[in-house]
């Protein structure tokens, strides 16, 4: 796991977009986030302008990580679905493959049953896409360019100063 790189390319995103749009429309949810288990946001869809998606991703990943530790303590390999119920908004999270989380935020305009149904479908489709992504990443050996790191260093000097 430690050596794996996560790279998402244009054509992959295109596929992910299709799945996510279908999910949102079908489940009538507010928004959907696709988050790496390490807390990186991979894709977001729907009404996310008012959400701090960066923090959300980190916290969701943390929440999922601690839940799976709890699972291990009670003798389960993993809890694959997490559901948070609020007064107005609810969040449904489920595993996609073994390294990403699909989180769906929805309200009372739809039902948990619908969300679960479409999430399940979407998770299967996304997993297929990720399998292809991983195969591609493992076969290719690319990274950031030298020019990137050089200009990044200048920018870092500029921002990180007292």
């Amino acid at each position: 796991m430690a050596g794996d790189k996560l790279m998402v390319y244009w054509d992959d995103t295109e596929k992910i977009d299709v799945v996510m749009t279908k999910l949102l429309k079908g489940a009538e949810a507010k928004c959907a986030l696709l988050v790496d288990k390490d807390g990186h946001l991979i894709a977001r869809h729907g009404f996310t302008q008012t959400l701090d998606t960066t923090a959300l991703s980190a916290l969701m990943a943390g929440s999922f990580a601690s839940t799976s530790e709890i699972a291990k303590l009670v003798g389960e390999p993993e809890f694959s679905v997490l559901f948070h119920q609020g007064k107005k908004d609810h969040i449904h999270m489920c595993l996609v493959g073994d390294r990403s989380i699909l989180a769906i935020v929805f309200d009372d305009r739809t039902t948990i049953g619908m969300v679960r149904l479409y999430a399940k479908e979407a998770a299967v489709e996304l997993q297929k896409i990720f399998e292809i992504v991983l195969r591609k990443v493992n076969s290719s050996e690319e990274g950031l360019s030298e020019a990137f790191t050089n200009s990044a260093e200048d920018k870092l000097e500029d921002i990180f100063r007292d």
Partner: protein
Amino acid sequence: MVSINYSSREVSCKIVYYGPGLSGKTTNLQYVHAKVPKKTRGDLISLATDADRTLYFDFLPINIGAINGFATKFQLYTVPGQVFYNATRKLVLRGVDGLVFVADSQRSKRDENIESLNNLKENLIEYGYDIYTLPIVLQYNKRDLPDVMPIEEMQQDLNWNNLPYFEASAVKGVGVFDTLKMITKVVLNRATKKTEAPEAEAAPAAMAGVAEPMVQEQVGTAIEHRASTQIAPRNSASTAGTTVAPPPVSMDRPHRVEVREVTDEAGWGTQSAVSQEQTKKLQTDKVLIPKHPTLAEIESKLHQVDNTELDSPKKPAVKPKAEVDEAARSQFADAFEVPHVVGMQKSLKLRKKKKRFFLFRWFGGDND
């Protein structure tokens, strides 16, 4: 494992501050949060106990803006330093790209530093990291306190691999940015590979495959985007094509003034240009989903939901509401009786008035 997202053109790195309890990991983040320009950072999130000890992690996202067209983000985490939180500490380490080990320089903390370092090595090895190649920077914190150990001794204790180190006083901000600069540089350097050949002539083909079931007008726009980005990638900054730049655009071309930069300044909750566009489309209902399920399919699914899945909270909530209200009303009928309430208020007012009267006599009368 630096995360590179070619579609939204983002690079994201996870940096974790590790160290024994009370060594100043959270203080490091607080200082960075206070000093870094507001538009480059998000909120500092602390999952802490009532006594302000870190329970799970602190989290500070930093977005240094677009570099060569890639929005570069660092996610700074701290771990809970206390010994018995090892389970959560280990979870935070998952997927780490760079580590800052914050050691407490006081002589009395020497054993704790060593114990924490050993714990770090154990956890990293368990995750399958190579502790000799993973970017790690040491920070000898609290140099401003009396009875600190000399640097040579600390080096002997903690620096197992000739790692870069900094003396610091996180409370005063000394050495905090030096440490952060070093670790970010090392992380980015490590992500750099000599070969740089963004892949995929396959990309357009795959895209065409995806676009196939779309409705005509959408296909039209999709092709337009593709055409603008493929044929003239250098000019794409002036068109909408910037938002959908495909991998064949080489990263070191100085061609883009990114749309992303604008959205980044607006804050962390903003969307990437691509998904914003999609949201707009979604709002106006212009996006027609490829391979839309037929009515029969939807009906059969609904049927399944009704039978097998959880019951829907929406439907039963509408009709029986009036009935429920009625039942509650009859049960607590006496509480709805108006005269009773008014009587209470009256008697309260009277009592207040009496009280005021006596007080007036007690104090006011004497003065006269």
